[in-house]
C-alpha cells in the first residue's frame, strides 16, 4: 500500500501530467508515512455522496463515540484539524452546512481514539462556496507537513479543487484504521 500512497502524491492534472510522470520515473522514492496511506482516500470519494438526511447523528460505528460528538477542539478526531468546526456552522462533524459543497480533496491526520486505543485516519475536508467565517478556530495540526506532502498539509485551502473557492468551515471524517 505504501507504494500506492507515494504515487498518490504525484496527483496531477491536465497538461502537466505527462511530463510529470517522466520526472516521477527518475525519482528514487523510499517508503515513508505509511500510516497516512489511507488518508487520501477520504477526500476523493466525496462527490459521490452529495447529501444525506440524517441530520448528522449517524456517526461511524465501532469507534465507541457518543451519538452527539463534543464540539471541543481537544476531542480525539480533531487531532490534525486546522480550521473551524462545521458543527458550529449549521453542519455537523461529518456534514457540510446546507448550501455549501464538500471539498473534493482533503488533508489527513492519524488520530488515536481513546475509546479503543487504536489509530484512525481522519480526512479533514473544507466545506466550500460560502463566505463568512463561523465557529471558533481549532488548530491542532498533529502530523501536519508542508505542501511537499500535500495530503498532510493543513495549511492549504482544500477548496482548491472545487469550482467555488471560498472556505466556510472544516469537517473531520473517520475514513479508516491506520494500520
Amino acid at each position, binding site marked *: 500500500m505504501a507504494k500506492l500512497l507515494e504515487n498518490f502524491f504525484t496527483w496531477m492534472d491536465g497538461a502537466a501530467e505527462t511530463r510529470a510522470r517522466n520526472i516521477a520515473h527518475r525519482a528514487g522514492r523510499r517508503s515513508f508515512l505509511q500510516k497516512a496511506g489511507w488518508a487520501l482516500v477520504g477526500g476523493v470519494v466525496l462527490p459521490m*455522496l452529495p447529501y444525506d438526511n440524517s441530520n448528522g447523528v449517524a456517526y461511524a460505528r465501532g469507534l465507541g463515540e457518543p451519538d452527539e460528538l463534543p464540539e471541543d477542539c481537544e476531542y480525539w478526531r480533531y487531532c490534525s484539524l486546522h480550521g473551524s468546526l462545521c458543527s458550529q456552522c449549521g453542519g455537523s462533524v461529518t456534514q457540510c452546512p446546507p448550501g455549501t459543497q464538500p471539498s473534493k480533496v482533503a488533508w489527513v491526520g492519524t488520530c488515536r481514539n481513546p475509546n479503543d486505543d487504536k489509530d484512525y485516519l481522519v480526512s479533514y475536508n473544507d466545506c466550500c462556496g460560502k463566505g463568512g467565517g463561523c465557529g471558533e478556530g481549532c488548530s491542532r495540526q498533529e502530523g501536519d507537513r508542508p505542501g511537499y506532502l500535500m495530503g498532510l498539509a493543513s495549511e492549504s485551502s482544500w477548496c482548491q479543487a472545487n469550482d467555488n473557492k471560498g472556505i466556510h468551515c472544516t469537517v473531520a*471524517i473517520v475514513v*479508516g484504521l491506520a494500520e
Partner: protein
Amino acid sequence: MANRFSLLTCSAVLALQLAVPNLAQAQEEPFVPETLTAKEMVDPGPKVFVNVQNWGGGPSVVRFYSADDLRVVGTADAGAQSHFAISADGKTVYIVSGYYSRLSSGTAEHVLRIFDTDTASLTKEVQLPVKVSQYTDDASLMQLSADEKYLYVQNATPATSVTVVDLEKGEVVQEVPSPGCFGIYPSLKGHAYSTICGDGTFTTMTLSADGATFESQKSDTIFDPEEDPIYLSFDRAGADLLFISYKGVVHRLSDAGGIIKAVSATPIAESVEGDWGTSGYTVVSYNEPNGILFVPMASGRHDGSHYHDAEEIWAYDLENKKLLYRTPVEGITSVITTDEEVPTLFGLDIGGGKVVKFEVDPEAKFAAKPVAENATKGFTTTLAARQ
C-alpha cells in the same frame, strides 16, 4: 502498479475505499468508515437573521441563528455593504450588495441575491442599477411591500432614489427619485412607501398598478432635523409607524391615508436624570400584545453619541406613557422584540461582535435577562426574527 495508480481517477479511488473495511481488524462492533456529505436542510425552527456587513471589499453574510439557543444553522452570502430583508414566513432572504471586480476597485455590480432559508441556497440573482446606498445597514434601506410583490431598495449616489424590483418578474420596474429623502417605510396595504426628508417632513410614494410610475404626497413638518433628528429605525404599532429621536422622543405617525400624519410625540427620557438618550442603530422595537416599546438607551448623551453602546434597555409602556423597567446591558447597539405575549429580545453588540438573546418577564415589568449569545464575527446593525 505504481504507475497505474498515479493515473487513478475518482471512481478508481472510490473502489479502493470500498476495500477499507476488509483491512480493519476485527472488533466488537466492526468499524464502518464515515462518509462526508452536505446537509440538505437547515435545522427547522424559529430563527434570528443577522446581517453581517463587510465594508472592506469582502463578503457580507446573513447568518441564520436558531432563536432557541443562537447556534448558527445556516448562512447566505453576498458582496460588500449588504442590506437585507426577510419574507414574513421566514422562508426567503433577500440580500442586496456590491461586487467589484477588484474588490476595492474595478467594474461594479449591485446585485439582489435571493436565498431559500430551508436549504440556505441561492435561488436567483437580479442585477440592480449600480446606485445602491453604501450606508450602514438599517432595516429601512431595503423593504418588501406588504404583499411581498415588490422589493424597495434605497439608492444614494449621493442623489437618493429607490429601485423598485418586481419579485414576480424578477426585474427592476422603476427607479423612484426621492431627492433629500432617505429610508423606506412601506404601507400596510397596497404598494406605497413613505420616506424621511431632510426638512423634517415625510414624502409618501404610491406606485401605480404595474409599479412603473408613482405619485407622491408630502407631509407637514414632523420633526426638527437640527434640534432633535429621528433615526432611520422604525417599527409598527398597530397600523401606525413608530420612530424615535436622538433625545428619546417617540414619534407615532399614521400612513393610512397615503400621507404621513403625526399621531403623537412622546418623550421617554425627559423625566429621567442623567441626560439619557437613544443609543444604537436598531433602536425602535415594539411588542404588540403588550404595547411595550424596547429602546437601547445611554446616559450622558452628547452631540455625536447617538450610535454609542447602550447602557440599558428600556421597556416603555407607550399607551400609558410609563417607563416600566431599565435593564442594564453592556455593548448592546441594536434591539428587536418578538410579538409574542411573552416577548423575547434579541440584541447586537457591535464591539463585542455578538448577538444576545434576552428573556423578558411581563410579570416583572418587562425586565430582560440575557440567556444565550453567539459570535457574529463582523459589523452588525440589523437583525430580524421569524417563527
